[in-house]
């Protein structure tokens, strides 16, 4: 009996793990350097996706608000960060400005708009779509259709020699480190601080939290500001790795939606897992099957939706 239960429990792992393991072994034997470089690329892309999606999932978990303007916060944070970076000649100031501006925008949105439509999913969705369209047009009006790139400190943008992989972009390693630090900080904030405790309590039962004398609106506003700030932060950090141009808003909105659907709505660890899966799928697709690689991400999403509609680490609500 125990054996069968064991098999059942690990069924999904066997079903997907073994073929993937076989492919990985083939990949390593075939071209070791390419395999590990692609893995590292996937992980670093995942780091970027995690930064964007963690804010998105945090807001959804607590506020039940699918913020479809999340991508606009990413783009606006990046543009404002670029302006500050150009003016001050400091990349770190640009990162800080991206975070602060998006956080402020998030705060204003929560206090000025979403507070008045609490619990009305459809109205919130329509309002966020409208806001994202307005934001995209305003950005196009101010910054035009040109391509923007940041100017980080010299030591970050070179390449570093790694064992097996060889030369690898230093900045992508920095990106990975940043995502890990932020992930740990988020975990610490949610698990160990008083505000984090309130947020977790709010995720589980909003009414009860409010009844026990906590200022729920305040908790909501803080959460929204942090979530939005993370998007703006990711805007500058991601714009440095890639570039900033009109259309990036919907691109990252879509990426974070996929990540969050795969990982589980409202779960920060789910966002991390989803980001790793999507990032690896994209990079392995590009390296090993460039023509069909784009499909991989959506195959993962379809499988998750079919067998675990609440996401891999999601909970039924």
């Amino acid at each position, binding site marked *: 009996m125990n054996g069968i239960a064991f098999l059942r429990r690990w069924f999904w792992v066997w079903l997907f793990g073994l073929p993937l393991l076989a492919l990985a072994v083939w990949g390593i034997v075939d071209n070791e350097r390419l395999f590990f470089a692609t893995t590292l690329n996937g992980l670093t892309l995942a780091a970027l996706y995690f930064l964007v999606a963690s804010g998105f999932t945090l807001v959804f978990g607590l506020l039940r608000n699918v913020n479809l303007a999340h991508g606009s916060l990413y783009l606006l944070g990046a543009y404002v960060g*670029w302006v500050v970076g150009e003016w001050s000649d400091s990349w770190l100031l640009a990162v800080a400005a991206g975070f602060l501006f998006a956080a402020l925008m998030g705060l204003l949105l929560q206090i000025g708009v979403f507070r008045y439509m609490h619990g009305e999913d459809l109205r919130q969705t329509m309002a966020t779509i409208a806001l994202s369209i307005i934001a995209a047009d305003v950005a196009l009006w101010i910054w035009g259709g040109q391509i923007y790139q940041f100017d980080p400190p010299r030591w970050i943008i070179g390449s570093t020699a790694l064992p097996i992989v060889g030369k690898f972009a230093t900045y992508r390693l920095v990106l990975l480190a940043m995502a890990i630090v932020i992930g740990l900080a988020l975990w610490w904030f949610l698990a160990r601080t008083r505000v984090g405790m309130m947020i977790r309590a709010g995720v589980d039962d909003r009414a009860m939290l409010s009844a026990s004398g906590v200022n729920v609106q305040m908790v909501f506003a803080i959460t929204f500001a942090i979530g939005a700030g993370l998007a703006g932060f990711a805007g500058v950090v991601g714009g440095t790795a890639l570039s900033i141009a009109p259309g990036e808003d919907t691109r990252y909105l879509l990426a974070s939606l996929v990540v969050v659907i795969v990982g589980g709505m409202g779960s920060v660890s789910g966002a991390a897992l989803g980001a790793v899966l999507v990032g690896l799928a994209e990079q392995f697709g590009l390296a090993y099957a460039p023509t069909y690689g784009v499909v991989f991400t959506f195959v993962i999403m379809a499988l998750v939706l079919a067998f675990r509609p609440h996401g891999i680490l999601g909970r039924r609500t």
Partner: protein
Amino acid sequence: MTERTRMLIGLLAGAAVATVLSAAAQAQETVKIGLLATLEGPFAAGGQDGMRGAELAVKERNGMAGGKKIEIIKASSDAKPDVAVNATRKLVEQDKVQIMVGPLSGSEGIAVKDYSKSQPGITFINGSSGAQATTLVNPSPNFFRFNTEGAQWMVGLGDYALNDKKYKKMALIAEDYAFPYSQVQGFMAGYCKLGGKVTHKAWVPLGGKDYSSVIAKLPTDVDALLVVLGGSDAVNFLSQYEQAGGDKPMVGGSITVDQTVLNFKGKRRDSLLGTPAAGPMADSIDTPEWKKFVADYKANFKDGFPSPSLFAYVYYINMKAALDGLDAVKGDLSGNQEKYREALKNLKLKTPTGEVTLDENRQAIGPTFITEVAKGADGVFYNKVVKTLPKVDQRLNLPKEEFEKMGLGSRDVPNCP
């Protein structure tokens, strides 16, 4: 209405009919030209500039051609073929235009060419669409294209890379759709024939952004890379390649190192210096005609780009061809525009970059410019002309049999690993 009855009615009805007749005569004095470009979607900025180019051609002759007043009726699409055909239909069937100029992008061009077959009484002239198939596969007798297309734009660059730059072995990275296929064919047809080798081809999705794994896969035993990417794809690839420690020189496509890429907002662009590329125009053509065109563009459009874009230039020459044709027949569009089309076919079009003539499929034979990225005294990057090919035809200057044996460009055609 015959001349006889018209005279009879004129005699009988007097003044009232005279007014009607003069109105009819006035209608004869104007020629309606439909102008279609994308003012929505991904190429909106290019479409707007295309309109500027076409308007410039009309303005140059004070809105008159062949002794008639030119009336322009504009319509917009969003780079989708069905939208382009609907907009063209509206112009032809509702607004009753006699000549059409447009559309902007490749697949739109094929759709409008197919529609033109159902309107034999109207003459269609291309806007800036550059698909090879438009005039090579089932050409339409009343569709004319006075601009060269994607494959023609790259002819001569293969020779330049191999013999001037000494790149014997190259790897290719390009977006996975029709326009880059044509561009790569234009390059490789010459490059392979002269003995060059392209050992690795990476076709990446349009708008892919993160190229790090594609870069990891590039072979290290090549002399240079052929990069046929456009807009932000190009900027992303170039900076990621540099960040990943890549150090191979590059050869670009017609839109890889154009004004939009050279002028991106950021500082890291010195690695682009000296990159060869090719196209139907260049920022610094040293002829009085080109300088006059640029000066006219700047004087007329204060809201335009610092220098006319490829779209402005190509729309300009197609509209100019339409008007030159009208001049040649003195505005005579009678007999299903037979004379007009004959005139267009035989036109020796004077463009700002040189003379353009048409082949038997009504496709342009025109100049191609080989360029290199250079830095001006003011620190601004631009494309310097290093070589000019005055006449390139749609078969890439190859004998007919040889081109037909090769076929149209695709992922695997041509091939020389």
